[in-house]
């Protein structure tokens, strides 16, 4: 920088320059003095886990430099570029806080001993009076495998509670279940670097460009090779804009579209019969089930013109190698599992799964969304995808943990069910980490009631999130680059996160906090860790022989070969980038196909609520926005939510672009800016979900869940948009319900002591 720049600074005192003579040099003279180090690591945000270098000088993270890693090749999206600014952020929590005046009091500074003792005393009292399960743990997947693993162990060994679950329930538990049912293994079957091998790419319900920008370079490499691109989405997203064919599907009707495409593929004789006979079971039932979905029928249900469905089926079906990519758009549904299975049926019928560049690919959203669901923090799972209700698998993990098998709790409530248990008082206290329920769960008025009924609500976070604001005790944790460990990205590639800084103030690493809590609970001997590596080595052992076998993955191996794909059962095993090349994960080695019928979303428009409201992301924010809304550049780009509405409807309703409007559903109403754009279906509204308080779209969303995996239906509910001068009806009103009260897949169906229905038990196997 030029020294002259300061000349034009207002009110600069030139005399001072002369007075400085002979004194210690001015600040700028030493500004470029420090030698800096580059710490190789990965981004803290989405499931791609791009490689990056952090610039570190004097123990401070001062910037970012590109890192040529196999899957991002030096590129970063805007979130990745500014991720490092979380480290020294002024909003960071630096010391523990306790609400000393009880509920309604203020959060006040406390020492660690005070905070930990308070929590442990309360927990011991609650557990003595109400049983072990009265304390729950609600976790997240945006942290390392080591932490996720430790959360599961902490809940089951440290607290002895069966209620432990995580926010992956809200993310893609439906896709996970679909892959486990169809293939026997829940992992994306191929690495991102395979995408350019595809001749046709069909993206269903995924705004790849905004949510996974780095994947676009692989899609575009395929496009450069001549691959066709088909996108099904109710909005013309940046990837839909460049697609050959955009299928503007009505939210929640994907099965009809996919079945119609499969029917057309059959009609054209494009089915790979030899593959189906050799490698799958259940094809005949699927063939019979799709017969009724003619393009015309599908057009009536989905709103996609019939000829587009036919052309999409031809482009997809005629390609020698074809790839289906899907994400939250079809997974956040009361039929999420079926939606994913419909994609799988289509890919299997074309004989694509197991082929380089072909098949289906689920795009995991959270940073460690893949690892988080494998290492045992899910209500029904133990490390390595082991089932908590299978005796041999329980026994193995109990042995690794050094506890008798009967002491290991049984399956607990799913994250979405836990909220009801809090509200009804079965859960008295909850530890929440790495999750912001007040932004992320649907119908958040109910969530607020549930959280407020807890005493104490304990939150570990590094910023004061909307959930932490309601806590009785807040413990300051660490951001990703203040600790080391591993994450598993959306390809199943295990990568290494390295530490670049120390936690600020009195903040601690999350595994240290959990270990300290376990010690206070009298279970310290099970948590003797001196570093994250010891946790990793225990995790490797705990996953040994499981579906996601990490045993052969050492930190050294990750460094040496730029990530290792699980399963990797032995130390000399190179890892498994492509799955299903010869056999599927089921005992008979075959993939299962399931006949699927279209069923409507739980809630549909009627005269009172004529629109379908769908929610989604913007490129500048990550999940609940706790991190990204605090990073200046990102927040400047999208500081508040908006509602997208088609000009045709805006005209009819008298709504102008950028006017503040009211969006109302049977649950609540919110006011926000209208953006009138033709890039959305006229019968659909879109609101991004990253915002809190009055701007949280999850005030409006429907808490109906998929019956088996309990994922909420974020992507379709009935809504109305109106001008602010319109009168608000006294009664909230009702939309069309597609369920009777008995069959309603509610978010909170869990009753105390209730045994699960047979369907749920079958589902639980996966």
């Amino acid at each position, binding site marked *: 920088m030029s020294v002259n720049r300061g000349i*034009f600074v207002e009110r600069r005192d030139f005399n001072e320059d002369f007075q400085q003579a002979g004194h210690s040099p001015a600040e700028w003279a030493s500004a470029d003095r420090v030698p800096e180090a580059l710490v190789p690591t990965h981004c803290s945000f989405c499931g791609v886990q791009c490689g990056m270098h952090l610039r570190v000088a004097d123990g401070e993270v001062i910037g970012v430099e590109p890192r040529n890693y196999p899957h991002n090749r030096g590129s970063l999206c805007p979130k990745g570029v500014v991720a490092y600014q979380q480290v020294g952020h002024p909003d960071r929590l630096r010391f523990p806080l306790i609400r000393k005046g009880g509920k309604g009091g203020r959060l006040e500074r406390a020492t660690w001993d005070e905070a930990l003792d308070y929590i442990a005393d309360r927990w011991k009292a609650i557990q003595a009076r109400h049983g072990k399960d009265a304390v729950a743990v609600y976790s997240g997947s945006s942290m390392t495998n080591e932490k996720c693993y430790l959360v599961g162990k902490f809940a089951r060994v440290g607290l002895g509670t069966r209620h432990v679950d995580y926010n992956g329930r809200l993310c893609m538990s439906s896709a996970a279940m679909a892959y486990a049912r169809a293939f026997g293994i829940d992992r994306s079957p191929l690495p991102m670097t395979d995408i350019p091998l595809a001749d046709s790419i069909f993206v269903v319900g995924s705004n790849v460009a905004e949510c996974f920008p780095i994947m676009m370079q692989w899609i575009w490499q395929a496009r450069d090779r001549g691959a066709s691109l088909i996108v099904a989405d109710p909005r013309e997203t940046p990837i839909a804009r460049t697609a050959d064919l955009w299928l503007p599907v009505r939210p929640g009707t994907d099965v009809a579209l996919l079945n119609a495409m499969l029917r057309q593929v059959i009609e054209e004789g494009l089915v790979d019969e030899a593959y189906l006979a050799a490698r799958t079971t259940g094809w005949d039932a699927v063939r019979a089930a799709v017969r009724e979905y003619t393009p015309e029928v599908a057009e009536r249900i989905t709103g996609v013109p019939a000829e587009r469905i036919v052309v999409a089926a031809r482009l997809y079906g005629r390609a020698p190698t074809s790839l289906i990519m899907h994400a939250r758009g079809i997974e956040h549904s009361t039929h999420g599992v079926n939606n994913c299975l419909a994609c799988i049926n289509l890919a299997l019928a074309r004989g694509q799964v197991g082929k380089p560049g072909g098949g289906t690919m689920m795009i995991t959203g959270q940073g460690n969304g893949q690892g988080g669901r494998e290492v045992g923090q899910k209500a029904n799972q133990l490390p390595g995808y082991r089932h908590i209700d299978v005796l041999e698998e329980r026994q193995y993990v109990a042995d690794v943990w050094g506890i008798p098998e009967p002491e290991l709790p049984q399956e607990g409530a799913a994250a979405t069910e836990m909220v009801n248990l809090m509200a009804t008082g079965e859960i008295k206290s909850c530890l929440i980490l790495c999750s912001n329920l007040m932004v992320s769960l649907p119908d958040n008025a109910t969530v607020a009631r549930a959280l407020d009924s807890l005493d104490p609500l304990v939150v570990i976070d590094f910023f004061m999130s909307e959930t932490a604001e309601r806590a009785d005790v807040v413990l300051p944790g660490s951001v990703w680059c203040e600790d080391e460990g591993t994450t598993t990205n959306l390809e199943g590639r295990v990568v290494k996160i390295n530490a670049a800084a120390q936690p600020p103030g009195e903040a601690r690493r999350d595994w240290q906090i959990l270990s300290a809590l376990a010690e206070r609970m009298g279970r310290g001997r099970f948590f003797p860790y001196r570093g994250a590596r010891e946790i990793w080595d225990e995790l490797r052992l705990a996953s040994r022989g499981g579906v996601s076998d990490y045993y052969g993955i050492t930190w050294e191996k990750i460094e040496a070969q730029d990530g290792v794909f699980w399963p990797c059962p032995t130390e000399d095993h190179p890892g498994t980038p492509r799955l299903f090349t010869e056999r599927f994960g089921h005992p008979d080695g075959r993939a299962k196909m399931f006949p699927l019928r279209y069923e409507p979303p739980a809630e549909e428009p009627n005269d009172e609520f004529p629109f379908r409201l769908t929610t989604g992301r913007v490129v500048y924010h990550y999940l609940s926005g706790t991190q990204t809304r605090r990073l200046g550049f990102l927040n400047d780009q999208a500081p508040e939510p908006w509602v997208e509405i088609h000009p045709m409807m805006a005209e009819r309703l008298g709504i102008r672009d950028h006017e503040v409007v009211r969006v109302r559903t049977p649950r609540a109403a919110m006011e926000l800016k209208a*953006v009138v*754009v033709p890039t959305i279906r006229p019968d659909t509204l879109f609101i991004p979900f990253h915002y809190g308080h009055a701007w949280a779209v999850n005030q409006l969303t429907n808490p109906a869940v998929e019956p088996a995996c309990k994922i909420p239906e974020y992507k379709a509910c009935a809504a109305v948009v109106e001008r602010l001068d319109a009168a608000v009806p006294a009664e909230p009103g009702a939309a069309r319900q597609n369920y009777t009260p008995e069959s309603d897949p509610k978010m909170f169906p869990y009753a105390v002591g209730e045994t699960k229905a047979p369907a749920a038990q079958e589902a639980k196997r996966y």
Partner: protein
Amino acid sequence: MAIKTLFVDPSRCIGCRACEAACRECDSHKGESMVMVDFVDRGRSVATQPTVCMHCADPVAPCAQVCPVLAIQITPEGVVQQAEPSRCIGCRNCVYACPFGVPKFDVEARLMKKCNLCYDRTAQGLQPWCAQACPTQALWYGEYEEFVNERQGRAVNLTGFGTQSVRTRVYHVVGVETPALDLAGLLREARAEVGAPERPRQEAWVL
């Protein structure tokens, strides 16, 4: 040897502003971006486009030509530098002269600011930050021959303004004129088969 330069391909731009975020990371102008990403017409499309300095080659840099104090200098490689802060008098001639609307005047600093192709990086054989970060290679850095080999689209570096034209160091990428896939034909054919040429009115927006 062919020179390395930037290729700007708006058809691939997803509007994520990674280039802006990355540009702001440079220590020489921390917190300010020399790249701009704009919605072309949000009322019609989600199309976006990044604007970087085109580093005009012929006629050589109009901004430099009009600078009364020779503050804008051009390196032997043909990279047009930002106005040298110790010389710039803040007259804004360059802002008006640029045919692409690139130089920005920083009122507070009273200095002209624009992209200098990350001279500190590119002189060392690295990529400029914007192209390095760009997740979609809408901004791409490399040699022309490499581009032609790897990518679809036509790279052009001659831009016409009325009777004048400017040849630039940086290339724009325009789409191929006849796409390999005859989508309109496929749709016509399919429409005849499904036998539903009459669309209900509310679906007219799709086409």
